[in-house]
């Protein structure tokens, strides 16, 4: 029971993007297409699971005063691995994500989970927590990018959704569209929460 609870809390009740407001920069920057969103989500999930694993393993040996630099070094190592793997196997994706791959290092979700969860819990639960948070992050990215790509480009994962008469709203692909989309999604979730809490 506890395992599923840890897994699902990252996906809905404390979704890193929509609830905790963490990791907003990549969320808004790479979600102009679903393809990029999946790439970013995958990369971040890998880093999240690996760094949670290592941080949890070394949690007893790291003095609390220098824990943050230690965690950042662990995270940066995995980010470099992802960076090199992506450059080797998915050069196109690597190019379109650009600077945001090295910036996974400072994605607050990852350091946040290392500090708040992995440094206090055993290895198994840390892995589960990393997986849940990673999935939650990826789903959030996919949700935002779905809206933006369909409205702004008329496609989903590169496949056309509407007929040829559809005029895409370019704004949604540009920066303001990202802000509007995430604003409305968070407002919708707030509304949903109030609705369910009133009825129950």
């Amino acid at each position, binding site marked *: 029971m506890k395992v599923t609870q840890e897994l699902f809390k990252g996906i809905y009740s404390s979704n890193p993007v929509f609830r905790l407001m*963490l990791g907003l*920069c990549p969320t808004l920057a790479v979600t102009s297409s679903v393809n990029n969103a999946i790439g970013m989500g995958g990369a971040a999930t890998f880093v999240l699971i690996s760094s949670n694993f290592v941080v949890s393993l070394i949690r007893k040996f790291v003095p609390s005063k220098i824990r943050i630099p230690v965690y950042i070094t662990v995270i*940066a190592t995995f*980010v*470099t691995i992802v*960076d*090199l793997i992506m450059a080797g196997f998915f050069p196109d994706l690597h190019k379109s994500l650009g600077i945001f791959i090295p910036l996974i290092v400072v994605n607050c979700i990852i350091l946040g989970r290392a500090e708040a969860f992995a440094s206090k819990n055993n290895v198994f639960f840390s892995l589960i927590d990393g997986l849940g948070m990673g999935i939650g992050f990826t789903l959030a990215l996919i949700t935002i990018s779905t809206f933006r790509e369909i409205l702004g480009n008329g496609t989903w994962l590169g496949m056309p959704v509407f007929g040829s008469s559809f005029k895409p709203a370019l704004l949604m692909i540009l920066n303001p569209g990202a802000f509007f989309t995430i*604003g409305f999604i968070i407002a919708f979730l707030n509304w949903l929460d109030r609705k369910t809490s009133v009825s129950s």
Partner: protein
Amino acid sequence: MLISIGSIFISNIVLAKFLGLCPYIGVSKQLDSALGMGMAVIFVMTFASVATWLIYTYFLAPTTQNILFMVFLKGKGAPPDLTYLRTISFILIIAALVQFVEMVIQKISPTLYQSLGIYLPLITTNCAVLGVSLLNIDNNYSFIESLVNGFMSGAGFTLALILMAGLRERIELANLPKAMRGVPIAFIIAGCMSLAFLGFSGLSF
């Protein structure tokens, strides 16, 4: 000049490049704290740009100027390519720098430390600082250009943060739908601001 106008208005770090959004949403509730955060970011970002540029050019880049190359290989053979250490070394430099700035401010001005204290550690994970350092390298900026870009990007961040804080202080009083209050409306405002800043992209020199 071109870089300075460019990095404040045309490619504003927050509104056009999406860097540093966490503090942008988190610290923009009050004008005072927004100003403090902005100043801290300008300070750290300028120093970080300079420090990372120096480290990259003289220790990591595969050029004949590389100090490690000169010392350990005595200038013979091919210069080593250490650019894959970029991410790790930059983030450590920034973390050390932030710690250093924190200590200096604590010593020099305890009152400033009181008001900035909680924001300084956050700057380490502010992706704008690392982002600007990486962009300096990616764009092949010279030393002076990196310095100017670092400072001006910080100024652009502060500008966006202060504008946002001013707007949010007003909007607190507005009668909004309950679900929109707080963060959602902040994002909508940011969207409108980003739209306005998009107008600058027509500027050309």
